[in-house]
């Protein structure tokens, strides 16, 4: 631990990120190594091509890559990279709730928000029918007809949409995932 803390100096904003994200020093170091590996030309930041190369087979790869970039920006530096990944840190049970600190990125609420924003590309706080159709099209690909996609989207909106505005808002999104153990489903065990 001591050695990893001291070598943390090579990581930009190391100490602050440690606090902010809740990652351990060892994990942060490892992520930094990975960052440098992805950063093929050692520019100190990643462009979307760097990430896309890893996700070429993922049907929603573009969305995931998009989530790393602030609107309007073309690059992502290490601190922002880690901040995004912090959403996927496993939740600790015995977290002290003092209410003063801001909600950590790995809380159930923020995890869900992160997923929700991947659907909600225009960021208006709702998953519209077109947005849902787009996701379904990406996930199901060419294997199904447009009609089938339409009927599934129709059904999904009908099921979740109680106030009949033809869209799914965050609350309804959260409600439909109530049964799912989000702490478990949206967490990655980061290696040290």
């Amino acid at each position: 631990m001591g050695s990893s803390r001291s070598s943390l100096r090579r990581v930009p904003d190391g100490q602050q990120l440690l606090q902010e994200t809740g990652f351990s020093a060892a994990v942060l170091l490892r992520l930094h190594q990975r960052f440098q590996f992805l950063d093929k030309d050692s520019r100190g930041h990643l462009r979307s091509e760097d990430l896309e190369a890893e996700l070429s087979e993922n049907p929603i790869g573009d969305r995931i890559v998009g989530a790393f970039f602030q609107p309007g920006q073309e690059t992502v530096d290490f601190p922002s990279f880690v901040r995004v990944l912090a959403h996927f840190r496993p939740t600790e049970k015995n977290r002290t709730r003092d209410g003063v600190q801001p909600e950590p990125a790995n809380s159930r609420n923020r995890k869900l928000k992160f997923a929700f924003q991947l659907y909600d590309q225009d960021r208006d706080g709702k998953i519209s029918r077109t947005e849902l159709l787009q996701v379904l099209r990406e996930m199901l690909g060419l294997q199904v007809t447009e009609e089938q996609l339409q009927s599934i989207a129709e059904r999904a909106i009908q099921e979740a949409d109680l106030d009949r505005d033809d869209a799914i808002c965050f609350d309804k999104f959260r409600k439909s995932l109530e049964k799912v153990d989000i702490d478990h489903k949206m967490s990655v065990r980061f290696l040290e």
Partner: protein
Amino acid sequence: NATKHKAFPVLELNYDYVRMPFEISLWILLALLMKLGFHIIPRISHIVPESCLLIFVGLLIGGVIKAIQEKAPVMDTKLFFLYLLPPIILDAGYFLPIRAFTENMGTILVFAVVGTLWNAFFIGGMMFAVCQIEAAAAAHVSLLSCLLFGSIISAVDPVAVLAVFEEIHINELLHILVFGESLLNDAVTVVLYHLFEEFSHADTVTVGDAFLGVVSFFVVSLGGILVGVIYGVLGAFTSRFTSHFRVIEPLFVFLYSYMAYLSAEVFHLSGIMSLIACGVVMRPYVEANISHKSYTTIKYFLKMWSSVSETLIFIFLGVSTVEGPHNWNWIFVVFTLVFCLLSRVLGVVGLTFIINKFRIVKLTKKDQFIVAYGGLRGAIAFSLGYLIHQDEGSKDTRGMFLTAIITVIFFTVFVQGMTIRPLVELLAVKKKKESKPSINEEIHTQFLDHLLTGIEDICGHYGHHHWKDKLNRFNKTYVKKWLIAGERSSEPQLISFYNKMEMKQAMMLVESGSAAKLP
């Protein structure tokens, strides 16, 4: 004399001719009537688990049979392993919640393999110590016999666990942990049992023998799985061609899985693991191929068979208790009970400490308690105890072992089985959330799976999601084409889920509508 005719030429009393099938039918009828009875009597099934009542009925029947000086049928080991156990295991394996199972695979494996090993050696060693210290009549029991005893008594029983846990509706995580453990520890039990029995006949045991024992554990478990997978693929492949002859579809499923079980048992591989592997492999492909009616038939037949088998097992357990050879040894029985409980608790706490370092969702104190407390012993232990060779010298030992095994079974099924429901209430353990399957949930879950696969790939950390994705891809590109007929082979999961839901809703609409919509 020979020419003397009977009053009625054909009529005759010949009970021996029908004796066997008639008595089997009677037993099954009795089992069904009991089951029915317990469901009709209000509230009793809330207090006492059904399995306790069934054992109690078995005890009564055994007593009656003994009183009229007939020979009661004891639970024959062959009958149990070849006819009563497979339906229960197939039902469990075929409807295994695969998602929960694979996500907790590591934990389940550690509990099943390391936990059972620990229990077997701890109980075996401790009981050997007890036999030495006490001047009780147990000094002649050898270390190997004690270890054999430990390996029999340490296996958590899938039948008993299922019977009790089905009723209390505990949350999915705890259910799959205890249940998965009970299914997978069969491999360990089989190996330990056969190993110690072989060792006890050999004169010397070397380090090499012990090493071969470890190797044979892998052979038994992996071989069992391999046999199951082969039959599963065969079953899936066969179901591809049944579209013109629908009535035999269910039978293919049953036959292939039963043959997987038997083929594994031929080589002393783990039949239970083979059966589970067969069910798990076969199900997705078979369900895509067969008709909806055949699917319903398979489902209800499995449920019916397993429930009847389970009922029979518990009744037989009761009957055999009255009949079986007994040799009550206070010290041995009491210490067995104490060490069974102690080793289970120590094992679960110790292993959880290690496992929690690797799990995303940690096991809480409550979880540990329920896992430790839910480790019921059942008919497998009893049947294995019966299997112990009846050498002349060890006749007392066998009786003593059987009595101790029965006591432990009764203690776990009665005391732990009856108290687990109030304890779950008292500790406020999360219950199963029952609700309708929703299309949103299905879409979002798949979306999250893709998301997590993506995140793992970005981190360069190849974990659970990464391998699942690889397996799905492999399945989609190579396997499905061969095992699923027609256009359904390229149908994504979401579409089949949607179709199934539509079908269910349409059927419900028809059922309720015909009555409600009449003017």
